[in-house]
């Protein structure tokens, strides 16, 4: 049943989010080509004036517009993911959703998994768009900027080292956990809005988002403060300039990463605990307290 739920959630978002993602990629390519045009015509254009000058101005404008467009598309995608949740759970569609022969937990899991997948897809499309932009839009002399990939290659080499790949994996892990926590945070806010408010449930949900945010902030600060002392001590002892060579990037990175390890795991664990709490609360409210209009 979970598979079927995911299938329909995915389907309903696909209609909107595939075009939105294609738009992001398209805007990045267009921005890159415009920028390349600007770069390549820069030297002679000022002298020739007239038409070329106008074209340069327009292409510069287009680059800006495309970046605004990309930002708007990302916001739109995020909004649609959560609006879909709201529609399906809190609005009239809830009458269908909550009379399906499935467990409430399955409904919640399906929403979490679909949202995560779409966020990841959008993230990957965004990264890919950035690479395309760097490749096409940053060179004055050649159509493809291969130099930038040499620099990227160097970066990957650092990340390929033992410390680098560990750091990379930890960052990935944290991104995933933080993403899940954020999704569940918004879900919980929307659910509380749906349970508490008689009207304007969506608006109430947005309000509760900030209330949860404050509560989460207070708990996080306490935990971070408790863990901070040992981290600072760690850093002081391992980062002294007279012990390590500050120009040895690999070594500095290694020391920094290992000094921040306790802090990293504490933050990760706190975020994971928040996710679990959000999920349990959401499940309880959906199962026992939700009263659809």
């Amino acid at each position: 049943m979970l598979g079927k739920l995911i299938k329909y959630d995915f389907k309903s978002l696909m209609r909107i989010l595939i075009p939105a993602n294609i738009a992001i990629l398209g805007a990045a390519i267009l921005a890159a080509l415009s920028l390349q045009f600007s770069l390549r015509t820069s030297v002679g254009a000022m002298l020739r004036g007239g038409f070329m000058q106008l074209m340069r101005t327009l292409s510069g404008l287009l680059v800006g517009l495309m970046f605004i467009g990309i930002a708007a598309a990302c916001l739109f995608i995020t909004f649609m993911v959560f609006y879909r949740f709201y529609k399906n759970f809190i609005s009239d569609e809830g009458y269908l959703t909550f009379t399906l022969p499935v467990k409430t937990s399955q409904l919640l899991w399906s929403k979490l998994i679909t949202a995560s997948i779409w966020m990841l897809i959008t993230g990957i499309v965004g990264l890919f768009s950035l690479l395309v932009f760097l490749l096409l839009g940053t060179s004055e002399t050649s159509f493809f900027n291969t130099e930038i990939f040499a620099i990227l290659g160097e970066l990957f080499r650092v990340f390929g080292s033992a410390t680098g790949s560990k750091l990379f994996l930890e960052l990935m892990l944290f991104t995933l956990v933080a993403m899940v926590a954020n999704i569940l945070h918004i879900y919980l806010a929307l659910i509380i809005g749906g349970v508490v408010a008689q009207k304007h449930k969506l608006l109430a949900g947005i309000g509760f988002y900030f209330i949860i945010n404050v509560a989460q902030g207070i708990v996080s600060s306490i935990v971070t403060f408790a863990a901070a002392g040992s981290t600072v001590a760690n850093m002081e002892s391992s980062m002294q300039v007279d012990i390590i060579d500050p120009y040895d990037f690999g070594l500095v990175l290694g020391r920094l990463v290992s000094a921040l390890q306790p802090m990293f795991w504490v933050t990760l664990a706190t975020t994971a605990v928040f996710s679990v709490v959000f999920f349990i609360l959401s499940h309880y409210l959906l199962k026992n307290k939700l009263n659809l209009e």
Partner: protein
Amino acid sequence: MDMPVIKCSGLSKNFGNVYALSKLDLALPAGKIIGLLGPNGSGKTTLLKLACGLLTPTEGSIEICGTAPGQESKALVSYLPERTYLPDWMTAQQCLDYFEDFYSDFDRARAENMLAALGVPGDTRMKTLSKGTKEKVQLVLVMSRRARLYLLDEPIGGVDPAARDYILSTIIRNYSEDSTVLISTHLIYDVEKILDEFVFLQQGQVVSYASTDSLRADLGKSLDEYFREVFRC
């Protein structure tokens, strides 16, 4: 006696300080078409929502075919809310796919026939259909399941009289001996002829539960007349 399809014991539901249902006891048998009747705010919709698991009781219990509302009971209950609940991006055909996927008792051929008879286009999105047409699609979906219990909340309120007759005859045609249909409505005159039994609700309690035949035999009254008498303002 067979196990009741719905069994309520001391069932109460309050919203804040307002009691929607108050210590309600009721057991409804299998194989009947039963009218759930009462004035506005008497608790009809609340009772249906409790039976399909959209609400949880404040006190007391409700059982559907012997189990508390949950995943198991939801597979047995076919519920038609008074709201239009279909996602607006779906076409009627996609709605059929959806029901076929989630309900093992869904009879697709039956649904296709009913949609055709009612003249509902299969490939138009819900968004562009009229409210009445959406209600027809919902009713088709709900009645095309071979459920043990049908809960119909105002099933004929929004459709034209011709469709009303078709829907009522569909209800009679489709329900089987071991299934029960519980219809909540204000249009008593229209549904009276198909009802075997009726439940009168007032202020969250059962005022009267009897068979329509006995009403006619004992009091010589139609259900519509009796309703007007009991709930005279």
